[in-house]
């Protein structure tokens, strides 16, 4: 076998890919599939003992509340932890079992609403947390099981559409079940529709009432640590290996007498249970739940986290959740959005334009190019420099003297934006020095578009960046930051 593969002509990136026909496990054990310092780093990371990974997350996060006094940052911290939990759960279905579950966020919503039903003034039930959480988690597992049932007969893409439809239905019910007519009882307000349930109790565990954000932060952290350790054990167990075999080739797995259907259902149920747990904590910590918390936007954000971190890697998806959630949060505030945007550009470009010398040339070239264009514009097209950017960060003030800011950019903004998209796409077609040279005007255009159009609506712009990131990641590094490269069976 090896003789044959060596005779094949090797592509330019042969070293970066796993060898054809080599099992994932063999590949990993035989040594990193990547060359250079990245491969060495990965090999290093893989030799780290299992127990040290949760500690590496829990210790710094556990210290976080001591360094921040503001409620806002505590809230962001809780959000981040909940997303980390969700990412772990989604990783079970998508990363391990290879089931593209696009209804995942509905399980989160189910958990959150489940808690709100059993512990709020809505139905007048005020149960204690130690009862509500197991009940809700069990119910979510059951729901995951039910949604998974049709999946037994569906290959990947059909499953995706069924689960997406399920999410849509879940949202429809949340939004419209506020005036259900039930026989003998008349109209019943079941979910309060778009207004959500806003008088959810605080979490009470064995008589201990969680009433500060710090408490919720630690509860979420404890849940994360528990789930992380639990899933790490599951991953190393028989079931974990069976899931991965299912992901690699479900037909082969079935031939090896794996109970494929049961494994799929199990993966669905596991993932759903984790989402249900996260939902209960979400509900209690927010004190309110709204249908808008569980829409497609949240779903795609969650997918972006798992994909950036890398399918199949527990610590990877957790890191992905931290990075994406923090970036999204900072991008939302006009005072910080520009820092994140230009920071991201600076961070990612060295990976796109290599070697470092070229990157430096592009950076200097862009700055010079900007000043030249600006000077030309002052001479021949005064309107182009008359406006000011709507950005509020200090960097916006600095950049303001460098980019073109027309007084009334409305029509130009659209042209500029579409040109930028065309420019970025065009870049992928170019090679060598042409590409490097083309980076200069495109980067400058990106800065102009950001300062004119996007910085004014950072809440929308951030999702555009997420969408673009998903496409770019899939084309360049589908395994994300920490995932292992998939072996395609040919």
């Amino acid at each position, binding site marked *: 076998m090896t003789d044959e593969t060596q005779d094949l002509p090797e592509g330019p990136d042969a070293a970066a890919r796993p060898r054809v026909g080599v099992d994932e496990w063999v590949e990993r054990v035989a040594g990193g599939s990547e060359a250079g310092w990245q491969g060495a780093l990965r090999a290093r990371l893989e030799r780290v003992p299992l127990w040290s990974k949760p500690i590496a997350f829990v210790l710094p996060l556990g210290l976080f509340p001591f360094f921040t006094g503001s409620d806002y940052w505590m809230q962001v911290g809780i959000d981040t932890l909940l997303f980390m939990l969700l990412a772990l759960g989604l990783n079970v279905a*998508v990363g391990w079992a290879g089931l*593209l579950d696009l209804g995942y966020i509905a399980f989160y919503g189910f958990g959150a609403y489940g808690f709100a039903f059993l512990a709020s003034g809505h139905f007048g039930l005020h149960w204690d947390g130690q009862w509500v959480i197991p009940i809700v988690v069990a119910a979510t597992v059951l729901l995951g099981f039910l949604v998974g049932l049709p999946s037994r007969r569906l290959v990947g*893409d059909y499953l995706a*559409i069924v689960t997406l439809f399920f999410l849509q239905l879940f949202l429809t019910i949340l939004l419209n079940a506020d005036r259900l007519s039930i026989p003998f009882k008349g109209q019943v307000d079941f979910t309060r529709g778009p207004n959500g349930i806003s008088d959810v109790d605080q979490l009470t565990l064995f008589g201990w009432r969680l009433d500060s954000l710090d408490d919720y932060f630690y509860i979420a952290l404890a849940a994360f640590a528990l789930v992380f350790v639990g899933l790490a054990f599951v991953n190393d167990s028989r079931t974990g290996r069976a899931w991965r075999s299912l992901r690699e080739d479900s037909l082969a797995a079935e031939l090896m007498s794996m109970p494929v259907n049961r494994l799929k259902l199990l993966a669905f149920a596991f993932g759903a249970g984790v989402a249900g747990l996260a939902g209960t904590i979400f509900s209690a910590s927010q004190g309110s739940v709204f249908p808008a918390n569980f829409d497609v936007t949240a779903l795609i954000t969650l997918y972006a986290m798992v994909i950036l971190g890398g399918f199949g890697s527990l610590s990877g998806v957790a890191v992905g959740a931290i990075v994406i959630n923090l970036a999204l949060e900072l991008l939302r505030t006009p005072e910080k959005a520009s820092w994140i945007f230009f920071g991201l550009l600076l961070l990612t470009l060295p990976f796109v334009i290599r070697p470092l010398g070229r990157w430096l040339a592009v950076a200097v070239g862009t700055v010079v190019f900007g000043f030249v264009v600006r000077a030309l514009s002052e001479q021949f097209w005064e309107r182009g420099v008359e406006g000011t950017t709507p950005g509020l960060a200090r960097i916006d003030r600095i950049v303001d003297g460098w980019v073109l800011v027309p007084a009334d950019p409305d029509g130009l903004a659209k042209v500029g934006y579409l040109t930028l998209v065309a420019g970025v*796409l065009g870049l992928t077609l170019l090679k060598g020095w042409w590409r490097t040279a083309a980076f200069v005007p495109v980067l400058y255009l990106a800065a102009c578009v950001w300062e004119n*159009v996007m910085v004014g609506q950072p809440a929308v*712009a951030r999702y555009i960046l997420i*969408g673009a990131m998903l496409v770019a990641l899939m*084309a360049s590094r589908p395994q994300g930051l920490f995932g292992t490269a998939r072996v395609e069976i040919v």
Partner: protein
Amino acid sequence: MDWEKLVQIIVNGTTLGSVYALVALGFSMVYGILKLLNFAHGDVLMVGAFIGWGVLGRLGGSLDPTVPVVLLIALMMVASMIGGGFLGVAIERFAYRPLRNAPRIAPLISALGVSFFLQNTVLLLWGADFRSYDTFDLVDPFTGLHVGVLNVWIIRLVVIASAFTMMLGLYALVKKTKLGKAMQATAFDREAAAMMGIDVDKVIVKTFFIGSALAGAAGVLVGLVFGQINHFMGFNYGLKGFTAAVVGGIGSIPGAMFGGLFIGLAEAFAAGYISNTFKDVIVFSILIAVMILRPSGLFGKAAVSKV
């Protein structure tokens, strides 16, 4: 028995169904050739609707069009078909082609990313407001067919007629032309088709162009009949269009037409006789039932997986 209501529901369902059928065709063609679920397809419809709206605005708007109404509608359709087609080609070139040999999950994620990108781009540049074609100002709501209990607004007739013309045209294209045969061959076995001298990449590009042009046209039809468009409309039509494609049998053109009409009528009947808010529940139940009872759809052939 309220005959007028029944007839109205059938007319509504057929209109809705012909739009779904157009969307389903695009889905079905792309799925047949690439085995890829193009989540961005619904958003191509949305962009098509916005292109039509832009053309309408340029030509004086609904109240005061500068060209005859028939020409105006034709121009809107042509512009959105060309725009949608090129958008589809660009999506294929930049989002899917690099992933031709990647694991199957990769293009699906990429498609989600494209969909999210398109939605938010339109949201950024055009805002979140619902836009209206104001078709009632353009065409008097009382013109049309009036026979007994049958009252059909002329725009509905236009929508149904143009959808069916396009579908028949597509059917003829696939069955009679060389390109159509190449498409069938590529869908059947891509590698074998390539070995037989078919330029597979070109066929895929053309398939995307045609499918997306149909979606763009469907966007204008939606705008004409249902009035309001916004950046998120593509999601619903994409979902229903895919359901229609699956119900009809994915990869089959008559199946997509039938599936579209079936889903459209089912939705209209559910909305008319059961509950407007929960009509999606019924469509979803149909989807689940078809998938469990006959996974290859009503018109599709059972897939044989090669080992």
